[in-house]
C-alpha cells in the first residue's frame, strides 16, 4: 500500500513542487551549471571519436558501414543521458539532504517523502535532457561539417529518450545517496558502478558478450538500450526493437529503485 503510494506520488503536485524548486536553482546559475558539463562530452567526442577515427575507419552497424565518430555520436547521447541524472542525483541530492538539511524544511510542509524523492528523480531526468540537447547540438554541427554522418532530424528525439532512461538512472543513484555514510564513499557508486556501466553499454565501442547470461543482462541495461535506440534513430532512422527495450528496461529499473530509494531515504532522513 505504502509502496504503491510511493510510485503514484509522481503524479502529485508535491513532487512537481520539489521538481520546480530544483529547476529554479538551476535557472539561477545555469551558466555554471551548463557550460562545464557540456564541455565534457565535446572533449570525449574529439578525443575518442575523432582521435580513434584515424585507426578505426568504419564499423558495421546493423548491416550499414558507418565511421567510428558516427558510432560515438550516439554513444555520447547515452553516456550523457546516463551520467547527468546519475551524478546529479548522487551529489546534488546528497548535499540537499545532509549538508543543507533542506529536506527537513520541505518535509515539514505538505510535501511527503516520496514526493521529495520523485522531485529529485524528475529533476535528474530533465537535467539529462538539458545536457543531451547540448550534445545533440554539437552532433548537428559535426554533421554539418561532415565529421559525422547522422540523420540529423532524429536528433530532436534524443532529449526525450534521455528523459525516459534518466528517470531510471536517477532513481538508481538515489539508493546510494540514501546509504553512503559520508561524501567520500560516493567513490563507490561513481567508480565501481557509474564508470563501468557507462563504458560497457555500447557507448564508445561495441560489446558483444558470448554467454547468454551476459547477453540477457545487456538487454535489461537501460544505458545499453539508450545507446542502441539513439544509434538506431541516428544511423538508420529506425530504433528496431531497442525502443521497446528502452521502455522495458527503464520500467524494470525505475520501479524497484524508486521503492527502495524511498524506503532507504525514509530510514535515513526520518530515522524510521
Amino acid at each position, binding site marked *: 500500500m505504502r509502496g504503491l503510494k510511493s510510485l503514484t506520488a509522481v503524479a502529485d*503536485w*508535491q513532487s512537481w*513542487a520539489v521538481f*520546480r*524548486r530544483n529547476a*529554479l*536553482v538551476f535557472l*539561477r546559475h545555469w551558466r555554471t551549471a551548463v557550460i562545464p558539463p557540456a564541455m565534457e562530452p565535446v572533449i570525449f567526442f574529439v578525443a575518442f571519436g575523432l582521435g580513434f577515427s584515424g585507426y578505426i575507419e568504419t564499423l558495421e552497424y546493423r548491416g550499414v558501414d558507418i565511421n567510428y565518430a558516427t558510432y560515438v555520436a550516439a554513444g555520447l547521447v547515452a553516456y550523457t543521458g546516463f551520467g547527468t541524472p546519475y551524478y546529479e542525483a548522487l551529489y546534488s541530492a546528497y548535499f540537499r539532504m545532509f549538508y*543543507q*538539511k*533542506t*529536506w*527537513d*524544511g*520541505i*518535509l*515539514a*510542509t*505538505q*510535501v*511527503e517523502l516520496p514526493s521529495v524523492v520523485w522531485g529529485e528523480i524528475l529533476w535528474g531526468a530533465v537535467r539529462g535532457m538539458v545536457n543531451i540537447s547540448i550534445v545533440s547540438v554539437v552532433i548537428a554541427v559535426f554533421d554539418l561539417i561532415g565529421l559525422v554522418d547522422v540523420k540529423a532530424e532524429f536528433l530532436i528525439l534524443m532529449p526525450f529518450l534521455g528523459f525516459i532512461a534518466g528517470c531510471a538512472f536517477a532513481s538508481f543513484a538515489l539508493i546510494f545517496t540514501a546509504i553512503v555514510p559520508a561524501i567520500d564513499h560516493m567513490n563507490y557508486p561513481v567508480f565501481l558502478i557509474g564508470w563501468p556501466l557507462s563504458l560497457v553499454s555500447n557507448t564508445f565501442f561495441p560489446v558483444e558478450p558470448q554467454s547468454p547470461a551476459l547477453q540477457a543482462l545487456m538487454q535489461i541495461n537501460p544505458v545499453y538500450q539508450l545507446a542502441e535506440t539513439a544509434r538506431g534513430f541516428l544511423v538508420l532512422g529506425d530504433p528496431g526493437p531497442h525502443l521497446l527495450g528502452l521502455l522495458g528496461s527503464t520500467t524494470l529499473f525505475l520501479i524497484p529503485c524508486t521503492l527502495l530509494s524511498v524506503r532507504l531515504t525514509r530510514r535515513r532522513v*526520518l*530515522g*524510521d
Partner: protein
Amino acid sequence: MTTAILEARGLTKSYADKIVVDRLDLSCRRGTVLGLLGPNGAGKTTTLRMLYGFVPPDAGSIHYAGKRFDEDRTEAKRSIGVCTQGDSLDYDFTVAQNLLIYASYFRPRVENLEGRVAELLDRFDLAEYADASPHVLSGGFVRRLLIARSIVHRPSVLFLDEPTTGLDPSARLDVWELIDSMRAEGLAIVLTTHYMDEAERLSDELLVIHEGRKVAQGEPHRVIDTVLGDHVIIVPRGEPAREEIAAWLQARGAEQVATVLGELRVPVTKQDLVELTARFTEATWQVRPPNLDDLFIALARRKGRFR
C-alpha cells in the same frame, strides 16, 4: 473556553528499543502557547515531529480541529507551520525567495503571496536582506527567517522548536515579542525550550517532560508549585551552619537538596520556613520563589534515581 485545535493522546515513540516519548497527552488552543520544557534528550523534538507529521508515532492519536491527523494529513498540514530546531533554510535561494519557495509547498496556494512575503520581511525586519543569501544572516536573523517562513502560508497551529537557542539576549527578546504577537493573532503555538524564563513568561500552559514522560503540567507557576513547593532557600557557602541545615531539612523529608557552586538550594514549604527560622536563629540565608532552574536541577537529580 474554546476547544483545543490540537489534541494528542498517548503519544509514544521508540528508537531501537529505547522509549523516547512515553504516552504523552497534550493539547493546545487558539491564541495560546503550550510550552514544552525538558532537558536535552527529553524527547521534545521527537514529540513535535510526531505532531507535525515528520515521524509517525508508534502509538497514540493526534487530532487537528477535531479531525484525525492520519485521515487526511495533507489537508491538516495546510494549517500547520513549523520552525525546526536546526537550520533548514534553503541556501540555494535568497531570503525573500526562501519565503516564496516555501509557500509553493502548500495548496491551496497562499493568497496574495507577494504581499504576504513583503509583509513578513517587513515585520521580521528582514527587508534589507531580501535579496541577499541567508549565508550573510547572523544567528538571530536566521531564526527570524525560519519563523517568518513557518507562517508564510498563514497556518493556525505553529510549532517552534527551541526558537531562541543560541541567540543573544536582545535577539531573544525580539523573538519573544514576535511569538507574543503571533499568539495575539490567534495562532495556537507549541514551543520547546530549555530556558526557564522563556517557558515561564511565554507559556499559557507548561508541559514538563523528562526522559519522554510527563513530569508536570499546568499553568507555569502551578507547575513549579507542584514539583517544588512554595519557596527556595539559598544558604551561602560561607554559612557555618550549612551542613546542619541541610541535614535538618533532609530529615524533614526535603528531597531535592542541591548544591550549586557551594551554595545550598532547597525547595521548602511555608511550614519548613517558619520552623527553620525559629531553629537556626543565628544563620543567614535568602528566600526566593522557586523558578524553573530549580525544577531542572531537581529533574537532573532524579535521573540517577530512575536508573
